[in-house]
């Protein structure tokens, strides 16, 4: 690691001031991505601003027709929360398959969403449920928030405070994890919402995306057979030493069908 100054933020406002005053500062919450990145010398922040324990980023609650999760809430807490299990069981199931137990004990939803790793799980739920990302400054719809590989609508000094998930009628998430890293080779979140069916795909492309053809087909019939003739365009997917783009396209279809089968059982 290169040297940096560690600063524990006293409040959200303090964290914002530190980010505004130091162009090369980085936020630290659980650190499950940032610390490995620092160790690999892939980042060289002047300041690491710790927001991991800020009370302003804590809490899980149902507010009207939404489940609101504080950005500092750890994966373990989403996975085991009775409130989440009751409101959106698919979200607690998703949180329970992120990384491994030690990662889930530290990593936070805000960190995962802000990082927007193309193979992370949470972006699929945020986009699949049509959630709203609430920062200290504004509210950003999921459809506008994710902007491709590691890119989001966040300004450099903007901090995610909570994520508000509209409670769907039914939803499910299925992923094919890479056997070593646990990251999604393809993960598909399917949700039947008040505004219609949404299908979000992570792991397969350069960033999370909606599979619109599947949404239209499932809107007519929430049945795995409805996806039978559909395929995502392999040309737009990732190819690396883990898998070809054609293999990933196949995985997306298989994971989508499994998610639909899971939904049908709910």
């Amino acid at each position: 690691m290169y040297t940096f100054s560690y600063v524990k933020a006293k409040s959200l406002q303090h964290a914002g001031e530190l980010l505004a005053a130091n162009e090369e500062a980085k936020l630290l919450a659980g650190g499950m991505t940032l610390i490995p990145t620092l160790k690999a010398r892939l980042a060289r922040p002047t300041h690491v601003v710790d927001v991991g324990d800020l009370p302003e980023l804590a809490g899980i609650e149902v507010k009207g027709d939404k489940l609101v999760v504080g950005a500092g809430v750890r994966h373990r807490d989403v996975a085991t929360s009775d409130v989440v299990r009751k409101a959106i069981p698919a979200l607690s199931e998703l949180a329970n398959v992120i990384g491994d137990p030690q990662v889930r004990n530290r990593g936070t939803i805000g960190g995962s969403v802000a990082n927007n790793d193309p193979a992370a799980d949470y972006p699929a739920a945020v986009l699949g449920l049509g959630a709203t990302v609430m920062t200290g400054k504004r509210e950003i719809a999921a459809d506008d928030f994710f902007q491709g590989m590691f890119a989001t609508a966040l300004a450099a000094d903007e901090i995610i405070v909570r994520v508000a998930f509209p409670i769907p009628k039914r939803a499910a998430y299925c992923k094919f994890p890479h056997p070593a890293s646990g990251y999604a080779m393809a993960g598909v979140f399917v949700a039947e919402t008040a505004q219609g069916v949404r299908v979000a795909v992570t792991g397969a492309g350069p960033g999370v995306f909606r599979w619109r053809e599947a949404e239209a087909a499932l809107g007519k019939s929430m049945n795995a057979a409805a996806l039978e003739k559909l395929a995502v365009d392999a040309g737009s997917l990732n190819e690396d030493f883990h898998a070809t783009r054609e293999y990933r396209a196949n995985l997306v279809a298989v994971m989508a069908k499994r998610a639909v089968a899971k939904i049908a059982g709910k």
Partner: protein
Amino acid sequence: MAKVEITVNGVKQSREVEDRTLLVDVLRDGLGLTGTHIGCDTSQCGCCTVHMNGLAVKSCTVLAAQANGADIVTIEGMAKNGQLHPIQQAFTECHGLQCGFCTPGMIMAVAGLLKDNPHPTDEEIYHGLEGNLCRCTGYINIVKAVKRSAELLGGKGH
């Protein structure tokens, strides 16, 4: 520099460290607690697992400064009064190791798993130990050791 005050295995400790210092380095180099191993140093293998405020964490992926004020338990804190912890006893009985390098982290991860789920099924054990790699055993005897630990702990989990 960061001042780090932590309780390790029940003893209060205080160290001045560089801001970039990792928790595992404070434990090993600062306090001489070399039972916590560094395997991969990239958050994959789980050899460095310790408990921080009751939860299993990979100490190679926690800054010492983040642990300020925390209660840490390492493998050295498991045996009490010369008596092996039931999980250590179970790993011995079931031969849940060969070279032993992963064992301290494995035991701390098992302790975390059993706290949450005192009687895990095989599937739950696989899922619960996903963050720990063993290159010798093929995990068969580790899974046996987890089940034996659950018996020895009598459903209490810890």
